[in-house]
C-alpha cells in the first residue's frame, strides 16, 4: 500500500484556515524556513480514505480476541470515549485557575482515592505517563526517602526477579541504581534462599510483580516483604498484573510500600496502537512527602493543587499528568464500583479455564492454578516438529486471533504467555482453544502450513534482519530505496514480542 507521501500531488490541500485581515510580520531571514517541509498534499476525502485503509490493515480488541500476555487487552467501553470529549474536559487548559477547574481536580482526587483503596496504601500521584515511568518514579521516591534518612550513599542496589518485565532492570539503570537479580524457584515463586543471599544493608529495595509474569501469586510474599523491611529497605509493586487481584489481595497488605498502576491495563484506557498509558504511583504515608508536585488535594469543599512539598522529587511529566486517561479510568472504576472484585475473579476464571483446556497439549512449566494469565511452552512442539512459539503465533492469525505474548518471561523457553482478560465470552475462549489444539495437530500432520503462516494477511513474514541492517526509518522521496528488488528472507527474531 502506498505511503501518504506517495499519494501527494502538488497544489492539493486538506483544510482551509481562517485568514484574518492582519499583516504578518517578517521573520528575520536567518530564522526563516528556507525550503517548505514535504508534508503530504491531499484533499480531505483522500486523507480519510488513506487512514481508513490503514486501519483495515490493523487488529485491535474490537477486531477480535487479543490475549497478549501482561498487556491486559480488555474491552474499552465506548461511553468513556464519548465522556472524554465533553468540552469541559477536552478543551480545558492545564493553567486554568483552580476555581475554573474544580470538576477536573475533583475527578483526579476521586480517582486517587479509588486507587488508594484498591492498593491498600495511603497517598497517590497520578502524574507518571505510563507504567515504566511509574517504575522510574518509584525508584526516585526510594532515592529521596533514603537521602532524607542519610542512607542514599549506602543503599545502591535494587533487586528484581528473573521473571521481571524488561522495564524493571531498565528503570533501575536509569535511576542510577545497581541491579541484583533473584532466581525463580521450582514452583515459580521467588527463590527465598537466594533472596536472603542478595539482600543486605546496601539494598534500597525490591521491584516485584505479583502475580508474577508467570501468572503465579508468590506464596512467600509475606516472608519476602519481611526480608526487605528487616534491613530497612522498601518494596516496589509493579502493577502490571493488578487485574488479577482487585478486591482480592492488596499490594499494601502484601507489604509493598510503593505501587504503580497501569491505567491502560487494569482500568481500560485504550492502548492506541502503543499508547497512551497512565502510571500513577500509590505509596505508604512515610513516602508521601516525596511524591511529585503538584499534588491534588481536597481543601474543605473544594480541591486545589499543592505545590508546597519541599521534599518532593519534583516533576516527572508536564503539568498534572495525562488527564484524558484519568477520565476513562475513573469512568471504568465507577462502572464496577466494589464489583471490581468480580472483574478480577472473572479474569482469573477465564485464564484458568483456558489453562485447563490447553495444558495437556502444550508444556506447562509450573503445575499450579494460575491467576489472570498463564505461560505455556512450545518446547515439545519445537523438539518434535520444529514448530516454534513464533510459528504458533503466526498460525493463530490464520484462525482470526491476535497471538499471545511470546518468548517472555525469559525463564520459560518457547514461552506463550496468554492473558484472556475478563471481558471475553466463553465461546471466544472455546474457539481460541480449538485453534490452539488444531495447531498441535497440524504440527504433526502438516507443519509447513504453520511455518508458512500467516496466510491471507496484507504481508507474509517480514525480514526483520534486513529492516535493522538497512535502517530505513523514513520515506526518502525521490531517493527512496526499493527493497523489493533485493532478496529477502523470513527472518523474524525469536525474541520477546509482547508484554
Amino acid at each position, binding site marked *: 500500500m502506498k505511503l501518504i507521501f506517495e499519494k501527494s500531488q502538488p497544489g492539493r490541500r486538506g483544510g482551509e484556515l481562517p485568514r484574518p485581515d492582519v499583516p504578518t510580520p517578517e521573520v528575520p531571514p536567518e530564522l526563516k524556513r528556507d525550503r517548505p517541509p514535504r508534508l503530504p498534499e491531499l484533499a480531505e476525502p483522500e486523507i480519510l480514505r488513506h487512514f481508513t485503509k490503514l486501519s483495515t490493515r490493523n487488529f485491535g480488541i474490537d477486531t477480535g480476541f487479543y490475549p497478549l500476555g501482561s498487556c491486559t487487552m480488555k474491552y474499552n467501553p465506548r461511553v468513556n470515549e464519548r465522556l472524554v470529549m*465533553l468540552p469541559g474536559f477536552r478543551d480545558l487548559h492545564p493553567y*486554568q485557575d483552580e476555581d475554573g477547574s474544580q470538576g477536573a481536580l475533583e475527578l483526579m482526587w476521586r480517582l486517587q482515592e479509588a486507587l488508594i483503596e484498591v492498593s491498600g496504601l495511603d497517598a497517590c500521584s497520578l502524574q507518571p505517563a505510563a507504567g515504566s515511568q511509574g517504575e522510574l518514579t518509584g525508584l526516585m521516591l526510594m532515592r529521596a526517602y533514603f537521602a532524607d534518612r542519610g542512607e542514599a550513599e549506602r543503599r545502591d542496589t535494587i533487586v528484581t526477579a528473573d521473571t521481571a518485565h524488561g522495564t524493571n532492570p*531498565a528503570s533501575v539503570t536509569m535511576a542510577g541504581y545497581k541491579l541484583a537479580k533473584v532466581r525463580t524457584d521450582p514452583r515459580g515463586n521467588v527463590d527465598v534462599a537466594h533472596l536472603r543471599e542478595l539482600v543486605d544493608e546496601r539494598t534500597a529495595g525490591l521491584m516485584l510483580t505479583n502475580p508474577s509474569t508467570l501468572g503465579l501469586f508468590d506464596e512467600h510474599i509475606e516472608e519476602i516483604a519481611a526480608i526487605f523491611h528487616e534491613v530497612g529497605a522498601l518494596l516496589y509493586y509493579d502493577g502490571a498484573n493488578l487485574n488479577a487481584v482487585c478486591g482480592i489481595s492488596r499490594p499494601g497488605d502484601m507489604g509493598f510500600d510503593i505501587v504503580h498502576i497501569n491505567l491502560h491495563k487494569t482500568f481500560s484506557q485504550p492502548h492506541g496502537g502503543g499508547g497512551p498509558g497512565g502510571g500513577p504511583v500509590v505509596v505508604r504515608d512515610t513516602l508521601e512527602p516525596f511524591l511529585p508536585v503538584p499534588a491534588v488535594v481536597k481543601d474543605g469543599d473544594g480541591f486545589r493543587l499543592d505545590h508546597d512539598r519541599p521534599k518532593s522529587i519534583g516533576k516527572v511529566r508536564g503539568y498534572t499528568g495525562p488527564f484524558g486517561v484519568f477520565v476513562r479510568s475513573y469512568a471504568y472504576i465507577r462502572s464496577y464500583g*466494589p464489583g471490581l472484585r468480580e472483574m478480577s475473579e472473572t479474569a482469573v476464571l477465564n485464564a484458568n479455564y483456558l489453562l485447563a483446556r490447553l495444558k495437556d497439549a502444550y508444556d506447562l512449566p509450573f503445575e499450579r492454578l494460575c491467576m489472570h494469565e498463564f505461560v505455556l511452552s512450545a518446547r515439545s512442539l519445537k523438539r518434535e516438529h520444529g514448530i516454534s512459539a513464533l510459528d504458533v503465533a503466526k498460525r493463530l492469525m490464520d484462525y482470526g486471533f*491476535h497471538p499471545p505474548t511470546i518468548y517472555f518471561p525469559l525463564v520459560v523457553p518457547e514461552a506463550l504467555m496468554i492473558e484472556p482478560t475478563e471481558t471475553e465470552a466463553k465461546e471466544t475462549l472455546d474457539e481460541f482453544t480449538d485453534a490452539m489444539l488444531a495447531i498441535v495437530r497440524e504440527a504433526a500432520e502438516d507443519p509447513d502450513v504453520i511455518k508458512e503462516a500467516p496466510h491471507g*494477511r496484507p504481508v507474509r513474514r*517480514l525480514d526483520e534482519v534486513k529492516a535493522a541492517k538497512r535502517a530505513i526509518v523514513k520515506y526518502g522521496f525521490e531517493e527512496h530505496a526499493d527493497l523489493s528488488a533485493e532478496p529477502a528472507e523470513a527472518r523474524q527474531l525469536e525474541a520477546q514480542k509482547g508484554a
Partner: protein
Amino acid sequence: MSYLSLTDRDREEMLAAIGVSSVEELFRDIPAGVRFHRDLDLEPALGEQELSRHLEELAARNVDTTHELSFLGAGIYDHYVPAIVDAVLQRGEFLTAYTPYQPELSQGVLQAIFEYQTAICELTGMDVSNASGYDGTTVAADACYVAKHATGRSKVVVTEATNPQVRQVVKTYAPGFGLEIVEVPHREGVTNPDELRRAAADAACVIFQQPNFFGCLEPAPDLAAAAHDAEAIPVAHVDLVSLGVLEAPGVYGCGMAIGEGQSAGNYQSFAGPHYGFLAARNDFIRRMPGRIVGETVDTAGERGYVLTLQTREQHIRREKATSNITTNQTLLALAGLVHLSWLGPEGLRELGETCMGLCDYAKRRLVAAGFELAFPERTTFKEFAVRVGRSAKDAVATARSRGVHPGYALGRDFAGLDDALLVAVTEQRSPEDIDRLVEALAA
C-alpha cells in the same frame, strides 16, 4: 454496569473443566495473611446513563475554552483540531490495538508511525524520529540521556527561557542519570550566545527552545553554533506548528530536535494525553529511546513495516537499554500525523503566519492601550509577554470576571515578572477576540 459476558451456566461449566468447586478456590495460592476480607470501599456501580450524568456534572464545573475567551498557552495551546482527526482516532483498529509486536496484524499502525516519523524528520530536518515520547518534558530528559552516553559528559545546559515544566522534569531525572543541570539566564527575553558558549564548556548537550517560553524567537543558529564551539550537542525544543515558517533545527546544525506535539492534532485536555517527539541525526540512531519503525519486505518482495533496531530497547536489552519506555503515545502521534496531512505544507505555513499576524496585532493593540511589552525588541511567534501595570494574578482575576482569561502569570516562574502576563494567540482567536482582551485588561 460491568462489561462481563459469563452467565451462571458458563461459570459452572468452566469451574467443572478446571476441576474446582468455586471461584474462591482459584485463589488458594494467596496466603491467608494477605487476603482482603471486606468489600472494596468504593462508591456503588453506575449504569451508563448515570455515569454519563455524573461525568457531565464534573465537566460542567470546569471553565473550558469554548466557554471563556482564553489566551492561555505557556506550552499547551488551543489550536483547531479538524474533525477528520477524531474520525481516524475513533477507528477501533487503531484505538484498541497495542504496540505492533506482530507486524502481519499491525501494518496499519506500523505504516502510520513510519509516516509520522517521516513528517517529524521533514519538519525538523533530522534523520530519524522515534514513534513518540510521553510529552514535551520527558523527551528533554531523554535527549539528555542520549547526549550523556554519546559524549561521556555529565553536564547539561538548559536555557532559562525554556518552558519551566521542561526544566523541572530534566532536574527531576538528573540525579538518576548522574547529570548536573546548569541554567543560562535570558537577557531581555532571549538567550545570549556568548553566555551559552561559556556555560556549554564540558557539557553533553545544550537545550534551548525556539520559539522560547516567552514566545520570542531565539537567535537559534547562533545558539547551535555556540554549543558546537563547546563540542556540546545542540538540542532544539521546537513547536511543530512553527515549522512552516521557522527554519528546521537540522538546517542550523542541531543534533536533536524535540518538543511537545500537542499543537499538532491534540486537544488541550487539561494537559494530556499528548505526545512528545524526539528526532535526531543519524549519529544517534542506535542511542534513541523508544520504538522506531523501519521498512522492509516479505518473502514475496512485498513492502512492509516492522519495529526495528530493537536491541536498543528494554524488552531485549533490559538493564543495558537506552530507555525504559514501553507504552508510548502512538495514538496522539497519529492525531498529529492526520492534522499535519490535513494542513499540508501550505496550510502549515499559513497557520504559522496567521499566528504571527494575530500575535503582532495583539501586541500593537495592547501597546496602543498603554501597556508595555516585557520584551519589546523581540520578534514573537504566537505568544508574548506584556506588563499589565499591577500584579498579573490580579489582572487575571479581573479579566476573568469579564469572561476573558488573559494568559499566564509569569511571576509563577520568573522573578521580576510579577506584573507580566504571557499571552498566547492561536488561529482560534479573531481580531475581535483580541479587542475584547484589550478591553478586559484595560478595565
